[in-house]
């Protein structure tokens, strides 16, 4: 089919991405990140960031409230688990659709403004939803305690098909439990599909229009082009990505809490995208990997782990190193992340992707005589 046709470079990119994602359990082993829970997080937040990048990277609209869709996806999924079935397919579909629906509403209102006003509007919506989920909507969201799947929930469809739940209920894909590695592969496949769709959008006329809006929206309007429907579409699509990511979070761990909607969660995806490279295809995924790695691995280094790490040094030097490094790991992992973020924003405004392309360019220019530097991509 025509829609699956890609240029040669894109085919390579697509294949490389798919292979890299599916082989994560192997190549992440040496750095201690290859355990199912973290791998699932990589895939889920990768999807979230890739979706966010469709809005932020292409149109330049910085939404500061995308976590709200993450939360809606999670809550919808858990409710589907509770009411319909522990099968993940309807759960993910409903989660994505409902997030899309909310994106239409929030996008319709927020997109009337641009720049900082748009960001503030989305932030306001997100905080509003967070506070609603936290207090007023407690009957639906179970507040701070979080919404959980219980054994005695109705689960109409499961009852219809005679699916028996043994022990505590977990999401399943037609009988395969969505925890551990199967859960990761499920998320990975969704991520790869998500990446493919994002690639298609980047290469499509629709994507081109979005980039045009980013470069100069006024000029677009002067030519008689109505930009708003395109912006709304971009907003809804990226909202649906976020909803799907939220669904996957609930699929791998059937629990939804209001803190997923907090502004810190919205800020995190912005960081991921900027760290990796705004507007690049692969950048958001890299950013997601980096931040989740820091959050889960760096935060776990305690003093004894550091002592082990530097045990090859003489004891005086060992203690010195531990004292120096200690504030940057463990509960100080935010400090390391912050420093890294500053360094990248100052020296590599295009994120990690820019770093990699610069490296390649330097290598090329070492071999061939330097030509005019190409336009920044």
């Amino acid at each position: 089919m025509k829609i699956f046709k890609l240029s040669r470079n894109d085919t390579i990119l697509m294949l490389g991405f798919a292979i890299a994602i599916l082989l994560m359990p192997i190549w992440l082993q040496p750095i201690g990140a290859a355990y199912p829970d973290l791998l699932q997080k990589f895939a889920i937040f990768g999807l979230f960031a890739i979706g966010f990048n469709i809005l932020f990277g292409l149109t330049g609209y910085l939404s500061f409230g995308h976590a709200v869709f993450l939360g809606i996806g999670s809550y919808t999924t858990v409710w589907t688990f509770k009411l319909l079935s522990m099968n993940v397919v309807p759960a993910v579909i409903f989660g994505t659709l409902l997030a899309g629906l909310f994106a239409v509403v929030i996008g319709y209102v927020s997109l009337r403004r641009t720049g900082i006003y748009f960001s503030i509007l989305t932030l306001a919506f997100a905080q509003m939803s967070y506070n609603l989920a936290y207090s007023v909507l407690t009957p639906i969201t179970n507040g701070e305690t979080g919404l959980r799947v219980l054994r005695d929930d109705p689960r109409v469809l499961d009852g219809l098909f005679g699916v028996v739940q043994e022990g505590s209920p977990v999401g399943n894909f037609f009988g395969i439990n969505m925890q551990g590695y199967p859960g990761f592969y499920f998320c990975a496949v969704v991520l790869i599909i998500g990446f493919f769709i994002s690639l298609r959008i980047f290469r499509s006329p629709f994507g081109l229009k979005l980039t045009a809006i980013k470069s100069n929206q006024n000029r677009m309007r002067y030519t008689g082009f109505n930009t708003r429907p395109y912006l709304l579409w971009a907003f809804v699509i990226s909202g649906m990505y976020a909803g799907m990511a939220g669904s996957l979070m609930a699929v791998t761990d059937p629990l939804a809490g209001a803190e997923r909607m907090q502004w810190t969660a919205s800020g995190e995806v912005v960081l991921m995208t900027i760290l990796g490279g705004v507007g690049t295809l692969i950048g958001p995924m890299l950013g997601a990997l980096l931040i989740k790695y820091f959050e889960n691995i760096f935060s776990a280094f305690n003093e004894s782990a550091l002592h082990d790490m530097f045990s090859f040094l003489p004891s005086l030097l060992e203690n010195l190193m531990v004292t120096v490094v200690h504030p940057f790991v463990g509960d100080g992992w935010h400090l390391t992340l912050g420093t890294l973020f500053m360094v990248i924003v100052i020296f590599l405004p295009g994120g990690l992707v820019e770093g990699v392309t610069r490296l390649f360019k330097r290598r090329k220019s070492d071999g061939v005589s330097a030509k005019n530097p190409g336009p920044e991509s």
Partner: protein
Amino acid sequence: MSIKVSQPNGWTRRSVLKTGLGTAAMAGAPMFFVRNAHAFTNDPSNGSSVILGFNVPQTGAYADEGADELRAYQLAVKHLNGEGDGGMMNTMKPSSLKGNGILGKKVEYVTGDTQTKSDAARASAKRMIEKDGAIMITGGSSSGVAVAVQSLCQEAGVVFMAGLTHSNDTTGKDKRKYGFRHFFNAYMSGAALGPVLEKEFGNDRQAYHLTADYTWGWTQEESIKNTTEGLGWKTNAAVRTPLGAGDFSQYITPVLNSGADVLILNHYGKDMINSLTQSVQFGLRDKQVNDKDFKIVVPLFSRLMAQGAGENIKGIFGTTNWNWSLTDEGSQAFVKSFGAEYGFPPSQAAHTCYVQTLLYANAIEVAGTFNPCGVIEALEGFKFDGMGNGATEYRAEDHQCFKDVLVVRGNENPSSQFDLLEVVQQVPRSQVEYDAAIFGGELGACA
């Protein structure tokens, strides 16, 4: 005339749909996942060490408690490995601990930050189980987190020794076979506090609740309400406040005009420090309402919070699981060894976490196996003494410890910066006991 559209290979749309649905229904049919009866998660039998996971809040409203919990865990690990002076290992009765690790294996530990959020806590616990190979998870300084992590541990087949969690739900409607709690709960606080409140404040009072809006706050509000209404008090209003709110002035202003003469703060950690300090700043304690002195009650009290609230806690009533000023042998041994290590006395959070670690290790020694099912059996109904609370029992029906509860009051004339709580009454176990069935819930099975 109808045209039948058929794919070249003979698949019609209808047949594709039929086959698809059929396959889906077949695949969705019951699949029973049978776990090998002998194998269990992270079996350390072949290694030289056994890994415990300490999952405590290092950031957020309960960070102070978390830091103290972690100190206690590190101390417990030392003692289990035969280092230090042994602390409560010397006073625990009956004890099978030998001071050579657990079943001869060296005890090691990994730590994680729960951030006082269910999501982060579960991620951190999962990391410990999946990556670090932890055989037991313990900690948590919020009941919401404890309940979330406890159900995760049940799924993973790993024992969870709850740290500081005071909600009735933890061993009530959300109890789990793999979860155990040494700490007391809101019901016990209410039962212990009731008679003292009656004696001090009388039977004709109007209470106003400010409640942390999550499982612990809800159950504590309910338990205290039941107790005070039993005394003949009226409940004027019960207002929920978000966890970690920081500024409580908007919630305190309405109290002034509500006609209530007692404010009950169902807050803990930094929240309690903030809400109490602000209540005092608003002049609540100097007020006269209904011809009575306005009073503030903090049902769950701890020395760490008292330290944070400073002058404001003087004369305020509450309950606590344990206080370092107790003079029994076990408490003294623990305070001495904690003080020698860190230079200040331990909090109740530290105490419960330390005890939990020792109890878990002891249960393994008793069972003679690391298999959680054996350990759970050894813990259920375990009776012990010499751990600071007198004779204590782990009730088999809901995995809740039953022991004496302390009613305390903020010390009017502290003799040191740590001497902040004065024990008013040591309420005997029989007075705070309840039927395991009243909160519902089921333990489930050991897989």
